[in-house]
């Protein structure tokens, strides 16, 4: 069994992501830790650090930009809510499996959290089961968490029903947490919207939307295709019409815009990602948006 966490770390450290990774760390820090009054130590400036945390005197002394670090006032708990129903075993917009995107996103966030000494918990499930993994702050724990998401999300799993997981999270946790939801990019139903409103009062809510497969993708027009929900085939002869393709693309754009509007109206930071390579920059953008939203 390959280590999912190692894969996440690898993804974070490949060349294209190295810069973003630093940014991501800085972003994470500034979003969730901010500044306490207790000064901890100095460290070299990393792009993304708050400019007002730069210790100008130390910078002048050392010749390198130095940033002040503060002792976090308290440890956070990051609650990852992941949909592991069979909908998430389907393909994402550009051909990766949505599950892989979810694992990478959860792994990245979890890894950042652990590095900051925060604890990570998981609520995952489908229409029939909801599992809760207690918050902890170790890498093996994060690995187990990722394995759980990865293992449970299969085409044989029960149907997706995020309402169940949202309900669970809304009822089970009194303490304020940072809730990070990983779900697909469909418009929220009325009960889900209510739950989202409730959750974002109780907790700090971030929402990663994973774009669904582009059914009309030209590269796929020759292949069979089926809906994971009921194995119903999507006829290939209809996936070639350019007019329908344009209509579909417009509809998907409109739908994504509507979901984004819904989240905006709840003041919940959300971000849509469509492929594996999109996850890390997407998370960065999500954190950035969240930071700006909080101010």
């Amino acid at each position, binding site marked *: 069994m390959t280590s999912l966490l190692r894969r996440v770390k690898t993804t974070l450290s490949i060349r294209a992501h190295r810069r973003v990774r630093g940014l991501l760390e800085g972003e994470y820090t500034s979003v969730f830790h901010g500044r306490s009054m207790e000064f901890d130590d100095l460290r070299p400036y990393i792009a993304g650090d708050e400019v007002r945390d730069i210790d100008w005197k130390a910078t002048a002394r050392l010749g390198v930009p130095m940033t002040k670090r503060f002792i976090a006032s308290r440890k956070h708990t990051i609650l990852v809510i992941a949909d592991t129903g069979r909908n998430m075993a389907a*393909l994402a917009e550009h051909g990766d499996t949505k599950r892989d995107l979810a694992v990478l996103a959860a792994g990245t966030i979890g890894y950042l959290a652990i590095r900051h000494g925060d604890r990570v918990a998981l609520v995952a499930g489908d229409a029939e089961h909801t599992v809760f993994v207690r918050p902890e702050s170790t890498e093996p724990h994060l690995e187990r968490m990722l394995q759980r998401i990865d293992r449970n999300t299969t085409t044989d799993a029960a149907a997706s029903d995020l309402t169940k997981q949202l309900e669970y999270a809304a009822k089970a946790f009194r303490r304020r947490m940072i809730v990070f939801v990983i779900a697909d990019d469909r418009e929220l139903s009325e009960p889900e919207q209510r739950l989202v409103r409730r959750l974002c009062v109780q907790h700090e809510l971030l929402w990663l939307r994973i774009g669904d497969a582009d059914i009309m993708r030209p590269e796929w027009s020759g292949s069979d295709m089926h809906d994971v929900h009921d194995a119903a085939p999507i006829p290939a002869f*209809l996936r070639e019409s350019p007019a329908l393709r344009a209509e579909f693309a417009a509809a998907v754009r409109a739908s994504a815009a509507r979901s984004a509007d819904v989240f905006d109206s709840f003041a919940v930071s959300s971000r849509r990602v469509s492929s594996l390579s999109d996850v890390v920059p997407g998370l960065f953008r999500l954190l950035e948006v969240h930071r700006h939203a909080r101010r």
Partner: protein
Amino acid sequence: MELIFWWAPLVWLVVMAVVVVTVVIVLRRRAKARLRAPDSSLPIAHRDRLTALPGYARALRRYRLLLAGFAACLVLLLVAAVALSARPAAVASVQPDLKNRDIVLCLDISGSMVDYDKEVLEVFGELAEQFTGERISLVIFNASAVTRFPLTSDYGYISRQFAELSAEFDSETADYYSGTLFGDGSSLVGDGLASCAVRFDTPEVERSRSVILVTDNLVAGDPIFTLPEAGALARDKGVLVYGINPGDTAAKSYLANLATEFRTVVEQTGGAYFSLDDPETIPAIVDEITAQQAATMEGEPELVLSDRPEPFVLLAFLSLCGSLVLGWRLRR
């Protein structure tokens, strides 16, 4: 409209039933075997993103229409194939017509007969222009018979020969009688008829055979065949003899017994006997002869089945074109 292989549709029906049952069974089994999608199939979620689009419904409707049209074309093609394999045929009751007559003109060219011969030739010369399929031969005889030309359907040639003979009759110098004088006597009618009766080639082919014998039956000499013997020969060979006797008139009543013999012989062969005074009446007689031949030849009306595949070939062609066009539209 009649079907020659009326059982062909039944065979098709059985075959199609077997095929349909087999396909249904196989499909059932396959459906049972896999409720899951094949591994090569791409899993996607929320197909309603596509299927809820009005464009999708339109495309699906168009596809279904095309598919229905395609299926209809195939059904039509199948129907046409079934119909063609059953060999549709038009039924016609056909009277066997007289286009297959063989006529031997058997002319007695003894001096008294020449005028009548000319008239007969003229009438047949005109008739020959309207003939299709009939064959005519010309035999002249006096003491012996000479075949001027054997049975032929070359009507131009026939007309020319008739004209030639008529001209020879008129000419002072021509020896149209050459070769006819080898017998013992003159106007040997029995020998002449016998010769004519054996002029029919192709005895195995079913054709009407008739001899038009123009003579006054005034025999001088010692023939090999008497007229009754010749008549019997003709009857044995299934030859109708039509007799035209210019001698059988009140003016020549001394010939009455000869005329009676002639008439008897002719009627025994199934032919008809005509007496005449005047060469002018010959056209009427020839008409009558041909009409009588028609009457005797008119057998049972035959049911003739002739293949009429045209409408179904057209249907098959059109439906094939249709299915090709629709199939091409479907592929796109």
